[in-house]
């Protein structure tokens, strides 16, 4: 997975999203260490200060916790928190869709049926490599 510098989302937010998705998918389980600041910076090819900021935000959000001299570890509620965050991102996507529908003049009932149709579809895209 690469950080997309073309995306409008600030990189430290992209890093947080990346780690949250990884925790939600079970790549990093509660109690396990996530890559060090330096290792993550080199892996994602970004400034280590940006990674530091992302880690600080994630620590503030309770997803990870620092163990002095050892590293950053996923908290016991980490996975649950990550899942909640993912749900929040899904809602954001819904809201984007609703905005598009509103500006295109599509009424709410039609929006609901469009959602039903979309959720019945097979996802053609393979799980994003983390």
């Amino acid at each position, binding site marked *: 997975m690469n950080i997309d510098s073309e995306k409008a989302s600030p990189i430290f937010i992209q890093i947080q999203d990346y780690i949250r998705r990884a925790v939600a998918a079970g790549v990093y389980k509660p109690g396990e260490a996530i890559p060090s600041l330096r290792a993550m910076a*080199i892996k994602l090819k970004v*400034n280590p200060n940006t990674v530091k900021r992302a880690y600080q935000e994630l620590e503030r959000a309770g997803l990870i916790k620092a163990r002095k001299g050892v590293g950053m570890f996923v908290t016991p509620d980490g996975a649950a928190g990550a899942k909640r965050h993912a749900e929040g991102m899904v809602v954001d996507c819904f809201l984007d869709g609703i905005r598009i529908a509103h*500006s295109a003049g599509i009424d709410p009932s039609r929006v609901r049926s469009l959602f039903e149709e979309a959720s019945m579809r097979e996802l053609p895209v393979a799980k994003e490599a983390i």
Partner: protein
Amino acid sequence: MTQVSEPMFAIETVGMTKRFGTCTAVDELDLRIPRGTVFGLIGPNGAGKSTTIRMLMGLSRPTCGVVKVLGEHVIDCPTTRKARIGYVPETPSVYRWMKVDEAVRFCRSFYDTWNDELCSRLKTLFELNGEKVVGSLSKGSLAKLGLLLAISPEPEVLILDEPTAGLDPLVREEFLDGVLAEICRRPQTVFLSSHTLGDVQRLADSVGILHEGRLLVSSSTDQLLASTKRLRAVLRDGASPALAPPGTIWQGSEHREWSLTVHGFSESTIEFLRRDGSVEHVEVLDLNLEEIFKDFIKGRRLSA
């Protein structure tokens, strides 16, 4: 013994100006770059980026203003200061007749802090042949040699002047990986000017946008991205764009769509737009660094 405190800013300029006859290449530039951070200077061709860097390196004397690097005025103490700065120009002008190993030995003799192990590691990583004459190196290898010579003395400040210009994407990535590995290895200040805004967005803690010698904005990268938004306002029938809200750096309208880019966006910006009733609804969009940069420059050109 009195402890000499380290200067807080690695690079500090106050009113730095450079004039060539009647042309002002750099106009009253104020920069404050804290130690251990990465600063990206971006701007269109001819904005004055290279002139700025040359003044920081002491390769060009400012017409007026103060220029300090590592707490010392650039005009004074050339040997001690230059030994703590690594510099990679757009095209490294290493002696073309020297072999790579000769160039390394030549530069090494001027630095007490030269790290042989690092130099050797970079030489292997960059696949540089020590016996090859510098004049016969490809553009990419020459750029990598320039970086090796700049990094091996373990400088406190690394100044890169469009170092990846004209390099193919693979070499560009190798070059930036080298810079990033060095940033991760030990704390240092990096001053980078580049046209590749994706690289700047990735690496820089803070950015400055230069246009016709003037600094339009200097801010942390995240802050700039967070506070600069594109607003797409749909106008009511018959309405025309009203007064643009404070902080508007660019605006354009077509049919009933009024697009604006606002720096320092907040909820009050939308209230301002809606206040005279001409706007039906407003969509707020995030922008990446390249889009923000373009809008700053376009807006400047339109107002000129």
